[in-house]
């Protein structure tokens, strides 16, 4: 349990500095049905499935080999074209996992495999059973100190309420999401007190709202591209601050911004294919920190 050794970093009471601590990750293989049937905001280029698979394998390899996480790989399910985007079906904070009720009806069955996986990790599981509630994990930004929940097409007030009920230690603020699929379509945590944010007006507006709602003061890292503002911050013992961010080939200007972070171990990740179906870096994993066996 966190917080035993030092009161100031107390685990239970909303300590802000355990952000990014991570021992386990849950990922899921991508089904071929993703190519044709994955949900997307707008029709665009076709997904190169082979390339998508390669990108995903690389992503998993980084988590597993490079960062030394214990990775649970769930098998793909052809009947669930979006199942690779595991982030949306579970929100894990400390020892508690909230199994969500995804906003897209076609994705509701994705939760089953996730629930089993998280149970196997002995997490305290809360299920969102209320039929009026919807919540995608992609709309949930945990800053280490509090939650922001984007009210989007996929996430509603009731879903946010259940999240607040689940994680009672933390303030849960709702923020409107304009023009984007998810809250994290244009922001994410890039460090313990650092919010990466895209440059579009909508993104900046949302950040303003978040700043107003918060008792804490966050630093912000503005990147030119909204999609590149979705990155993965980890704090791995022995490696320190680790940041998985979009590769320079995809978003050169944004990559330059990340490269200025001197304290971070930077790992560029290519995500060209998944982005065609609105998948960003955080979408493909659920990160868990197990400090001890229960």
């Amino acid at each position: 349990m966190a917080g035993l050794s030092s009161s100031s970093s107390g685990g239970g009471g909303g300590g802000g500095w355990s952000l990014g601590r991570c021992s386990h990750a849950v990922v899921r293989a991508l089904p071929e049905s993703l190519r044709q049937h994955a949900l997307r905001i707008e029709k665009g280029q076709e997904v190169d499935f082979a390339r998508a698979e390669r990108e995903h394998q690389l992503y998993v390899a980084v988590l597993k080999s490079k960062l030394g996480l214990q990775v649970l790989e769930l098998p793909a399910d052809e009947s669930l074209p979006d199942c690779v985007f595991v982030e949306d079906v579970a929100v894990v904070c400390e020892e508690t996992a909230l199994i969500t009720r995804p906003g897209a009806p076609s994705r509701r069955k994705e939760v089953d495999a996730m629930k089993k996986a998280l149970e196997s990790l002995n997490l305290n599981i809360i299920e969102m059973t209320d039929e009026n509630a919807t919540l995608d994990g992609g709309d949930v930004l945990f800053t280490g100190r509090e939650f922001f929940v984007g009210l989007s097409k996929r996430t509603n007030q009731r879903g946010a309420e259940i999240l607040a009920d689940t994680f009672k230690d933390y303030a849960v603020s709702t923020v409107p999401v304009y023009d984007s699929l998810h809250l994290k379509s244009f922001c994410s945590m890039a460090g313990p007190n650092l919010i990466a944010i895209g440059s579009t007006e909508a993104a900046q507006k949302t950040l303003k709202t978040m700043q107003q709602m918060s008792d804490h003061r966050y630093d912000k890292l503005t990147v030119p591209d909204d999609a590149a503002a979705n990155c993965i911050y980890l704090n791995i013992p022995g490696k320190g601050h680790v940041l998985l961010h979009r590769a320079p080939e995809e978003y050169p200007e944004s990559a330059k911004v990340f490269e200025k972070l001197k304290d971070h171990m930077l790992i560029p990740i290519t995500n060209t294919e998944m982005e065609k179906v609105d998948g960003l870096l955080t979408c493909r994993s659920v990160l868990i920190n197990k400090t001890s066996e229960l």
Partner: protein
Amino acid sequence: MMTETGPDSEVKNAQEEHPQQQLEAVATSPTTVTTGPGPMANNREAEANEKPRAQADSRSAEPGMDLEEKDYSETDGLSEKTTPSKTQKSPQKIAKKLKSAICRVTLLDASEYECEVEKHARGQVLFDMVCEHLNLLEKDYFGLTFCDSDSQKNWLDPSKEIKKQIRSGPWNFAFTVKFYPPDPAQLTEDITRYYLCLQLRADIITGRLPCSFVTHALLGSYAVQAELGDYDTEEHVGNYVSELHFAPNQTRELEERIMELHKTYRGMTPGEAEIHFLENAKKLSMYGVDLHHAKDSEGIDIMLGVCANGLLIYRDRLRINRFAWPKILKISYKRSNFYIKIRPGEYEQFESTIGFKLPNHRSAKRLWKVCIEHHTFFRLVSPEPPPKGFLVMGSKFRYSGRTQAQTRQASALIDRPAPFFKRSSSKRYTMSRSLDGEFSRPASVSENHNGGVESERRDEDGEYSGWQRSEAEDEFEEVTTPTKIKELKFLDKPEDVLLKHQASINELKRTLKEPNSKLVHRDRDRRLPSSPASSSPKNEDETPKGTPEKASESSVLKPEAATDSSVAGTKKAEPEVFVHHRVTTAETTQVDRDTTGGKETTAMSHIVTTESISVTSDHSTKPGKGMSPATELRSTSPISSSSSGKEILTSLFGATAETLSTSTTTHVTKTVKGGFAETRIEKRIIITGDEDVDQDQALALAIKEAKLQHPDMLVTKAVVYRETEPSPEERDKKPQES
């Protein structure tokens, strides 16, 4: 804490008619005892005498008299109820008892403390007795509450008579934390932290402070360590924690987890365990949030949470908006509506007002008071003096206790060996304890919620004329004569800071000189010249370290600077220290505030503002601050950062036209989530001329004209100030600086 002026003045009348009795009440000499057949009879007689006269009085007074009649009769009943305990007391005390009342105070460990206070005693007397009983020195974080006839929790105002506040209610009180210190580690004494822990444990088990299983376990385990000490294999067998209460729904699993954790704390002292407890509790999102039920403009149920940082708006458990104190320019209430006026944002030009509907007038006023108190305590250096003068409309209520800055300053001087105290059993914390559940128990009527909405009295003013005054910050619908117009201001405004500094210097001086706090007094001479920080190693965050070589006054001033800087934003305090020195020299200027009708003499203000402006360059984010000629004007121009605001300010100086001129019109339309949208038109009318101009008449004309121009709108507010011609050199300075 409903202290309407009507009833107040009425009661005062009653007192004036009975100076004799009052004297008796205070006197300790046995001679006064002989005035009646016996103590009890005498007491009854006094009551009996008082009652009809009071009634007679109130009949001649406002319609509020009904309440008063009830008050008195019920007080009679009370005195009879307390009879048995009185007779048990020693005869020595008879003289006092004549006019004393028994107070029952529920303490934080759920035990009850009983004491007698003189019947007309102010709240402070009782509060001090309780703190003495508790051996508590850092008492400013605490307060007494009582329940009113609607079972609503009210704070006992220390500066007012208890009797007037509780009205018909029983003399039962609860001792509770009023201001939750954001950083409990900064408290000086363990005993203070102990009481804070008890409060938080109560908050937790009542569900007022929600937390997760993990946190329940963690906090519970520290509570066990504090209470039972080290885990002892012989003593602690079985489920030794099951008698203690830690959570609203305590499970066996939770108890097991607590015991597991408890075993790992060996060697931790109770005081350390409590620090750990508080360090974790303070991070909880609902720590120190005082919730009030309300509705937004669309009639949706929301909660308003008042806390150290500002006002939080919740819908169900979700935070939907937040207004930090610096963002709020003014708070007010009218009838059952509660309003906050918001400083314009970065890209907005104008301020906006957001309204909320409270269950009734009293709850609106209660919320307003709690806001004033929290703002003063956490944001200001010293309390603002209550508005003076008969022209003041609205409530004269202000927080009169010490602010956090002052209490830290004072407690830095505490110099006593750590008092011994027994940590009482938390067994007493049963669920039956009638604290208020908020979120967790939505079904229950919580403290500040009144199920029934008080009948809407549109013509409330007429019915309770006495209330007109007590209705603070009201926006007056009818502006009849200009002399009546005076705006009360909420204070998170830079322009008020200077005045406050002055007041705070005086206040701090007083605090340190007067034996109000004996401990402070005791060591003053020895300690004062040294830095407060050095005398209290814990006092490290906001209180800047004083420099030892400075005179006592400068060390007094430092924490002020700290708070001031937080008022102004996130700036650090150091550069501003000098400002306060300067202000000190301009002592006389403070008087401006108290001149009648908000009319102020400009020349004097200039001294203050000019002085300060030369130093506080880091306030430049708020142009206009300190530059306008009169405080009142500045307070109405928080938007002075926008160009239009500035123009107005400068045009005041430049205006030489002999006639009336309307200088500007601004529109505000804004919708804020969780509130109303309002359209607001502000007009600034500058009347310039020499002494002969009938300014009152000119203003009346101008208002009339404004009404004609916008027949569908209300004149809600008019602010009048008068300035005299600034001296030429002053005038020259101004434009340069703005």
